């Protein structure tokens, strides 16, 4: 199918195209030659002329053929997921789908079948609920365009339910001869024509038999095998017109006696057929006797009872569809029809009904394929006719559970069920909240589900922290390590850009991203140097083993610990830690000055904190630091730096003096 992007200049422009995660971008361009400049990839001018001719793209000058559009069109496939009122459909069917995947496979035979039929009915009730909602929306909609859209949706949903119901009867339940017709009758009564309005009108009138639609209603009851209701109406006619009493009695009797294979009936098919044959012959006799000759309506009914094709066809307008015609015909000519015989009747009925006036529509083709038990054909036709994957994906999945689909290998080796589910779930991912449903669907696609999920989940915008955590949880549950790392890195980067260092740090720890952790630790340290205090203390205090992710992070954690120890007045521990940070080279050289400066208050304590050995170490560190500086650097160092160094030297010397004395003094002396 061809899809048109509106608003474009019809002159000789080309379309530039790019994939977005859920949409495509289209804009006008001219890949080939254009005014003044050669096109991409062109080098020598001589070639330009040649190219110009080849591409047929006209010649020079800006604005040749009119100004080009400066618009970029964002185009998206019309998906039902964007229709608000269908939300219920997607959400609830998701629940049914998951239930089905997890259902008891050990149940065999009848109970399994019953279970599957129930699932099918559940799906259908969701469709109907949606139809009802959509119908309400249609009524309450103000905007006519919207109303028309909703109305279309109602028709589509109605068609979906029609098809699904038929598939349930033929494939899921696999109704056998006998019950088959009963189900089909139900199907027709439920879906095909809206008789109720007509019935109401007639019944509520003063004299129903005088109503112009009276016989229409009687006819439709008969056509749908609703004998009791037909007889009830007919009785009103009888009482109104005594002359036809005799005729009426006979017809009523015939209708009452019609053999019907009802549920719970113990008679066999053969018995039923025999009875039916007798009854059929009785009807025949009355007709041939001319019993109903004086009343064309009743005669027509008798003919219908006899399965007379022409008589039934005469009521075409009432039946409205060829499949109604089919079921009526079967009811009155072959009620014990076998499933495999349906196809012959179906084709014949459709041809007769349409009679060459109109050609079959997509819906007709789908139903026909179903009657022919061509399941693959049904799925294929539905895929083409419907604008969403929802229907075919769920129906095919159900049929697969009924073990009805042979492995129909597509090019990547996946089967039809998986193919459709992948398409459906992929579509869900372009929706800001329905994507979560998509995850579960991918989970149940054994071959490509995982990789599709990996590709799609990466594109879910991580707009909030909660959303990111949600996505993360999904990835972690499925051991998607790459995606976990990727998401954490993205969040870390985002946090860093917004200056939320604590958040950035915890994300990079989660991502096990050492490089980033180092980067952020540096930022923390830089902040400390500038402001004299740490932000996000809670986080740093509770790093635990993740501190080891990167050296800089370790330093950050330990440095903070130093501050904590100092705050708790555990000076000797603090001192030990401080020294260790330098001697074990955990602290970066750039930070040594700061550390030594931090040592100052410890050196000036009343109580001696650093031992002699420790003091020598500190002095060595200081000398290493100053020696490391070139002459030029020393010259550039401002006075503050030099004073600091001098102060340190002094403090260290004093401390040394005190501690030598202290250590040299014996206890108690």
């Amino acid at each position, binding site marked *: *199918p*061809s*899809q*048109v992007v*509106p608003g*474009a*200049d019809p002159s000789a*422009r*080309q*379309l*530039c*195209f790019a*994939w*977005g*995660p*859920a*949409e*495509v971008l*289209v*804009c*006008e361009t*001219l*890949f*080939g030659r*254009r005014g003044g*400049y*050669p096109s*991409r*990839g062109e*080098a020598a001018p001589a070639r330009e002329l040649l190219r110009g001719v080849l591409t*047929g*793209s006209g010649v020079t000058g800006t604005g040749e053929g009119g100004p*080009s559009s*400066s*618009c*970029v*069109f964002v*185009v998206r*496939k*019309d998906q039902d997921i964007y229709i608000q009122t269908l939300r219920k459909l997607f959400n609830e069917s998701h629940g049914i789908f998951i239930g089905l995947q997890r259902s008891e496979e050990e149940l065999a035979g009848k109970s399994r079948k019953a279970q599957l039929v129930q699932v099918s009915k559940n799906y259908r009730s969701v469709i109907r609920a949606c139809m009802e909602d959509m119908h309400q929306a249609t009524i309450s909609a103000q905007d006519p365009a919207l109303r028309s859209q909703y109305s279309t949706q109602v028709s589509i949903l109605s068609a979906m339910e029609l098809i699904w119901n038929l598939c349930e009867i033929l494939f899921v339940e696999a109704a056998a001869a006998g019950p088959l017709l009963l189900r089909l009758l139900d199907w027709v009564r439920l879906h095909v024509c809206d008789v109720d309005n007509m019935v109401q009108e007639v019944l509520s009138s003063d004299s129903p038999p005088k109503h112009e639609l009276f016989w229409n209603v009687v006819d439709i009851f008969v056509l749908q095998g609703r004998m009791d209701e037909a007889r009830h109406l007919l009785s009103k006619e009888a009482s109104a017109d005594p002359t036809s009493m005799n005729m009426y009695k006979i017809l009523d009797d015939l209708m009452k006696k019609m053999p019907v294979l009802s549920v719970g009936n113990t008679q066999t098919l053969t018995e039923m057929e025999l009875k039916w044959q007798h009854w059929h012959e009785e009807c025949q006799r009355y007709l041939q006797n001319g019993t109903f000759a004086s009343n064309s309506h009743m005669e027509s009914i008798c003919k219908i009872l006899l399965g007379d094709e022409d008589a039934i066809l005469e009521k075409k307008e009432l039946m409205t569809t060829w499949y109604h015609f089919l079921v009526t015909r079967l009811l009155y000519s072959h009620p014990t029809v076998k499933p495999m015989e349906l196809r012959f009747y179906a084709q014949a009925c459709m041809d007769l009904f349409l009679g060459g006036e109109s050609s079959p529509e997509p819906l007709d083709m789908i139903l026909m394929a179903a009657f022919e038990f061509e399941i693959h054909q049904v799925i294929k036709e539905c895929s083409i006719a419907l*604008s969403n994957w929802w229907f075919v994906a769920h129906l095919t999945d159900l049929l697969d559970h009924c073990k009805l689909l042979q492995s129909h290998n*597509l*090019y*990547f080796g996946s089967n039809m069920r998986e193919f459709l589910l992948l398409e459906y779930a*992929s579509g869900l991912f372009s929706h800001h909240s329905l994507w979560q449903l998509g995850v579960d669907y991918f989970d149940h696609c054994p071959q*490509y589900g995982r*990789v*599709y999920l990996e*590709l*799609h989940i*990466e*594109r879910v*915008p991580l707009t909030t922290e909660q959303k990111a955590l949600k996505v993360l949880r999904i990835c972690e549950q499925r051991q998607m390590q790459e995606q976990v790392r*990727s998401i954490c890195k*993205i969040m*870390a*980067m985002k946090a860093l850009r917004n200056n939320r260092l604590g958040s950035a740090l915890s994300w990079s720890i989660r991502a*096990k991203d*050492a490089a980033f952790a180092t980067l952020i630790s540096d930022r923390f340290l830089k902040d400390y140097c500038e402001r004299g205090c740490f932000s996000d203390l809670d986080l740093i205090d509770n790093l635990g083993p993740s501190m080891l992710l*990167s050296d800089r992070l370790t330093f950050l954690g330990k440095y903070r610990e130093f501050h904590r120890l100092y705050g708790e007045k555990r000076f000797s521990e603090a001192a030990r830690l401080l020294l260790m940070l330098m001697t074990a080279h955990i602290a970066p050289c750039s930070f040594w000055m700061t550390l030594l400066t931090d040592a100052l208050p410890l050196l000036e304590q009343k109580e001696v904190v650093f031992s002699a050995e420790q003091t020598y170490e500190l002095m060595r560190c200081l000398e290493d630091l100053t020696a490391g500086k070139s002459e030029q650097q020393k010259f550039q160092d401002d006075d503050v730096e030099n004073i600091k160094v001098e102060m340190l030297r002094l403090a260290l010397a004093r401390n040394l003096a005190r501690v030598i004395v202290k250590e040299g003094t014996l206890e108690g002396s």
Partner: protein
Amino acid sequence: QVSVINTVDTSHEDMIHDAQMDYYGTRLATCSSDRSVKIFDVRNGGQILIADLRGHEGPVWQVAWAHPMYGNILASCSYDRKVIIWKEESGTWEKTYEYTGHDSSVNSVCWAPHDYGLILACGSSDGAISLLSYTGDGQWEVKKISNAHTIGCNAVSWAPAVVPGSLIEQPSGQKPNYIKRFASGGCDNLVKIWKEEDGQWKEEQKLEAHSDWVRDVAWAPSIGLPTSTIASCSQDGRVFIWTCDDASGNSWSPKLLHKFNDVVWHVSWSITANILAVSGGDNKVTLWKESVDGLWACISDVNKGQGGVSAVTEGQQNEQ
């Protein structure tokens, strides 16, 4: 059926050459012959101009978004022989790096898979391909493949990241040994595959099938199969799908997707690699999908102007 959900009026003063969505579909970058690169916020059907980046001195041919884990970074290349890398810092977009090492128009830029780090491949009309790798602290390292394609290189496309050998998780902090590869297309009618070995880039494969300049190459995303797939399109109107079945990357075989009546300029793969989009000189973009029997079928075409919805035809004939 498709709908136009947003029409972004870029207000570019001249022909637009490229438009790219960012990773999440929230931002749109466009570039034009008017020498500017523009960035728009397109969430919820809106269009807010975030940045109008000036720095190029000629038509800008392509833009490419880097992976969001590196921040908001965009690369652009131009006829002015420059590659500019733009970065969003504290809410504003600025030029963060400018590469001027090419002698001629730079036609294509493509970011490597994020697993490799922040690496940009650039193809130029001077026949060279340069690889810019971010090494930290605002520094970029450059590796150049001179004479990658005689006359000029028109397109570059990276292979998806695949870890060779076992998939045992590496200890944290250690990078797995990725085999880095990318494909390029040039004016020598060839598609070439490049592989990094011991820090050097070597030509691994030469794919010959086109009879005229190769305009675009696109390496398909990986869906976990051992096969690799590349699409190439050319001035000769043909689009080829190249597949390689073995992991060592030795035997590539082409399949003709279709012969168009005009130059084919652009090919690109959807995220899950199941649809290939082809832009040709015939005012149309066609979408292709591989069918059951291995043949490629056109599933749709997007065009402008008059065009009705026609019945679906399964599998257009591959015209020779």
